[in-house]
């Protein structure tokens, strides 16, 4: 009688232990097994991002392929932009703060859609205000006009009611290029910081060995 009850409790312990180990495995593995659902819009099919060369805010000529190995966030904006650009840049900066040490695997590039007013010096002061790692790119009017269509970016000068200035209407999406230089998805304006962070973290995880 006593012998069977011992056996009974032993099998219970084994069963419970197995269950514990299994649930731990499922819990740990879940983020890797479950396919990530993007908040942004995936490029179908993913294609290599077109290469280009422009002048960085440091004055040196840089090309997109120089950033191979990093996750590149490509944005088109300008320093006179009152609302959309500062919001987007501040949101990306918040994501990078959340990423901590992994932030150095991400490179934001802002190409000016207003190269006439955005000198490298102005761009430097503008983009680094949001995050020290951000890089502003500019060039001649024709240089920028040649790069924008490679990414389906629209921009157009708009006369302002104030005679001294003009606006530039422009595409507001953030393009995400993986460390292999493949255009993976775009993040529309208005995406919450947390959703942006989840999308980018998922891409970073995919790129590095698990």
């Amino acid at each position, binding site marked *: 009688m006593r012998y069977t009850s011992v056996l009974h409790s032993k099998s219970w312990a084994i069963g419970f232990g197995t269950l514990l180990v299994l649930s731990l495995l499922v819990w740990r593995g879940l983020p890797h097994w479950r396919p990530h659902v993007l908040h942004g819009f995936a490029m179908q099919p993913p294609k290599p991002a077109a290469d280009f060369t422009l002048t960085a805010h440091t004055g040196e000529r840089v090309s997109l392929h120089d950033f191979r190995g990093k996750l590149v966030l490509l944005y088109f904006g300008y320093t006179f932009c*009152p*609302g959309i650009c500062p919001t987007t840049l501040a949101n990306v900066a*918040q994501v990078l703060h959340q990423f901590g040490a992994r932030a150095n695997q991400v490179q934001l590039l802002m190409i000016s859609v207003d190269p006439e007013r955005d000198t490298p010096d102005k761009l430097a002061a503008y983009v680094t*205000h949001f995050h020290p790692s951000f890089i502003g790119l500019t060039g001649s009017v024709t240089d920028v006009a040649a790069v924008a269509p490679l990414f389906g*970016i629209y921009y157009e000068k708009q006369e302002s009611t*104030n005679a001294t200035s003009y606006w530039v209407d422009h*595409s*507001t999406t953030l393009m995400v290029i993986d460390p292999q230089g493949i255009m993976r998805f775009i993040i*529309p304006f208005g995406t919450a910081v947390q959703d942006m962070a989840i999308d980018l973290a998922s891409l970073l995880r995919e790129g590095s060995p698990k």
Partner: protein
Amino acid sequence: MFSEHKEGVLMHRPWFVGLGLVLLSMAVPYDSGLALAEPRVTVHEVWGPSMPPVAPMGAFYMIIRNTGNEGERLRGTHSPACTIIELHESYEKPGGAMGAMGMRPVPGGVIDIPAQSQVELKASGFHLMCLGKRLAFEKGAQFPLTLHFETSGEVTVPVLIREP
């Protein structure tokens, strides 16, 4: 005889008069004044995104609520922080590339705040454009902003500069 009878009814049923008075008072909305339809405007969550000193522009966002029974209109604003403030609107460019947005002065030059509703001023919609910043839009800064309403007149509120 008839008038005597009517008088008798009222005399013997004072509750009838009371009920009449109660019904009459219910027909007039409480706290509105009899024929005084008016807007009742409050302004909430007034803020502006922090901006690099090199950026010449700034923006202000808020929620304008009208709990009154008459529509109100925002006609203009001013602040010591800006040379000029314009009422602007961001809008999606029709037929353009995905995510293409344009900006224009608000058509008609006013922002309508209909009765019993609220309007949110935000980057992707109506907003106040600060042209020619006179003060630094750095995180934590605060300055007054005066809104000119058509009926309610001037309303001055503090703007808080913060991260978006």
